[in-house]
């Protein structure tokens, strides 16, 4: 290779220019995996901002599957005893810590009931004549005493004891305080910090040894009732609310009314068939599932046609004859005058679209009793358009020539996002099965159609879901 071919003149005279010319605009293909990494980072960034529009169907399926696996593992990982304890918590019972030495030693019963703000205490003693040394006054082997008090107002701060004294002589209750009876004394001590126990009814029955002094104290903290006896102290406590965990399955239907915003304000009826799996953890829950929905909307067509419109008439002479008196007799006929006019007409049809909806709802149980519960749920939902049935316009213009039929129905987007919120009212038929009524509200984050702008035209809908709820493992 001679010098001439090996080297070119350094025309520009500068190394900078030489480098610029050689390097500028040069392309080097990046690693094929780089876009995947960028795409993944974009996705996480979007998810962290609650933007789910770039999630693929595969992502969704994986998410739902992952959720199911996690909740299943959590549930199945619970020891059976925990699950049973969780089950017991729903009954509203209370537990008592009874000293071991006192258990199964007597045959007397103390009952404490708490219906609303009034509490009553009764002491029932199964008396065995032999224990009373053949006292002839105890002809009736059962002696009962009871009393009521208002836990909110009737007892002064600090508590003047309400004392139930057993009179062994006549089997009656002596309410005078300060009298000590050798057989028994029951005092109810209120506490200033008492809080009405949030249960409509409570009943505790324990056998305790009958003795000379039984002192009842009203709630302090978690202690519902304290009974002091010479044999020990029995604390009746609210049962520790074990975290209850269980699944529930909802199957139901939901009629819904969607309201579309400007430029055309109108509402349309939709219908959903919903199946939902909910995992409950204490008062909280997370739910997902599938909904198959029939959504109805207007189809819009513009029809241009030309018709012969009558604009008047005239009388034309068909023939004439001469009469007997030389008068001219005309034979006429009426001729209509038509004008060929081009018309435009709007025709609206009813289209049906089929959607598959996947919600992820977080719930919080606001209220619960033995028979009903009320849960607030909120979360995102995505709907995928899986089918559409578009009605043809009805064109019935006699004496008209159709020029053009223009379909102005906005095209529906294949996936759209909503914020879904509802109030789930569960009415229990039994422990496992409930009815539910669920008024719901959905706000669409983006328009349903691709021709609308996101800011002003996103629709919203209200619905009422009804169906059955099956509680699994509760």
């Amino acid at each position, binding site marked *: 290779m001679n010098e001439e071919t090996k080297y070119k003149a350094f025309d520009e005279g500068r190394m900078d220019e030489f480098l610029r010319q050689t390097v500028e605009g040069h392309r080097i293909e990046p690693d094929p995996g780089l*876009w995947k990494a*960028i795409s993944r980072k974009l996705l996480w960034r979007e998810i962290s901002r609650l933007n789910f529009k770039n999630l693929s169907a595969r992502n969704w399926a994986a998410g739902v599957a992952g959720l199911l696996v996690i909740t299943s593992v959590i549930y199945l990982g619970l020891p059976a005893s925990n699950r049973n304890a969780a089950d017991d918590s729903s009954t509203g019972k209370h537990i008592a810590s009874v000293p071991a030495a006192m258990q199964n030693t007597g045959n007397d019963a103390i009952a404490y009931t708490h219906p609303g703000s009034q509490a009553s205490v009764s002491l029932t003693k199964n008396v065995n004549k032999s224990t009373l040394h053949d006292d002839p006054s105890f002809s009736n082997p059962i002696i009962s005493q009871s009393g009521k008090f208002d836990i909110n107002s009737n007892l002064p701060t600090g508590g003047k004891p309400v004392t139930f004294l057993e009179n062994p002589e006549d089997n009656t209750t002596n309410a005078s305080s300060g009298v000590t009876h050798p057989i028994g004394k029951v005092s109810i001590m209120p506490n200033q910090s008492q809080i009405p126990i949030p249960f409509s009814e409570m009943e505790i029955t324990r056998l305790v040894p009958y003795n000379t002094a039984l002192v009842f104290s009203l709630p302090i903290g978690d202690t519902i009732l304290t009974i002091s006896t010479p044999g020990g102290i029995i604390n009746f406590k609210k049962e520790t609310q074990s975290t209850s965990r269980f699944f529930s399955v909802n199957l139901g239907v939901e009629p819904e009314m969607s309201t579309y915003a400007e430029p055309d304000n109108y509402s349309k009826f939709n219908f959903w068939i919903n199946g939902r799996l909910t995992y409950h953890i204490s008062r909280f829950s997370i739910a997902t599932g599938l909904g198959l929905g029939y959504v109805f909307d207007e189809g819009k067509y513009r029809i241009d046609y030309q018709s012969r419109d009558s604009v008047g008439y005239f009388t034309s002479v068909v023939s004439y004859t001469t009469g007997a008196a030389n008068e001219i007799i005309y034979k006429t006929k009426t001729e209509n005058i038509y004008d060929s006019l081009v018309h435009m007409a709007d025709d609206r049809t009813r289209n049906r679209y089929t959607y598959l909806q996947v919600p992820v709802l977080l719930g919080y149980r606001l209220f619960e009793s033995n028979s009903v519960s009320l849960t607030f749920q909120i979360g995102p939902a995505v709907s995928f358009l899986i089918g559409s049935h578009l009605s043809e316009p009805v064109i019935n213009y006699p004496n008209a020539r159709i020029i053009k039929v223009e379909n102005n129905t906005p095209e529906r987007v294949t996936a759209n996002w909503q914020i879904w919120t509802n109030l789930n009212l569960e009415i229990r038929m039994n422990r496992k099965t409930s009815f539910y009524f669920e008024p719901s509200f959905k706000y669409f984050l983006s328009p349903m159609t691709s021709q609308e702008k996101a800011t002003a035209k996103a629709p919203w809908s209200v619905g009422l879901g009804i169906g059955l709820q099956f509680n699994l493992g509760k």
Partner: protein
Amino acid sequence: MLIDDSIIEGCVAGKRSAQSALYLKYSSVMLAVCLRYAQNRDEAEDILQEAFLKIFQHISTYRKEGSFEGWMKRIMINHALNYYRKNRKLPFHENIESINEMEIMELEEPQAVHAPVSAEKLLALIQKLPPGYRLVFNMFVFEEYSHKEISEALSISENTSKSQLLKARKMLRNRLFDLNILQNTAPINE
């Protein structure tokens, strides 16, 4: 390189398909830019990745006043500079208070001839420059920043910028000579 407005609008709307199209269109050009600033390909791809994320995040701020490619390139370069600021201390340790202007002129005298050389080879030579030299050299030669602009961008003095450029050129020229890409005197017609 023209870009369809719909791609930009799609990126503004956050559509992944548009982002993918933008990436496909520009990633190879931008990687070449990143390679000039990076020490190796891995580093360049790191810069490219982070810069594209930034572009997608801020694409709504592009006002269509200049070329889109130029806008992207500026982000790439800024990101490359930030990358070096964050990840390593730039060795701008030679702060020459007074640069011999004659020396610079001498260095900038045209070389006689050069051999055909591939862009990859030149990029590899640029990459081998020490980071401080490389940054200043790239900004001055390819992005055509002035020394004042470079000094502001890198928080160094103008004289340091000049000295880094001087040394970068000297080093690069020597390597070009070593590889026989440049020859001191080689008149074509002799």
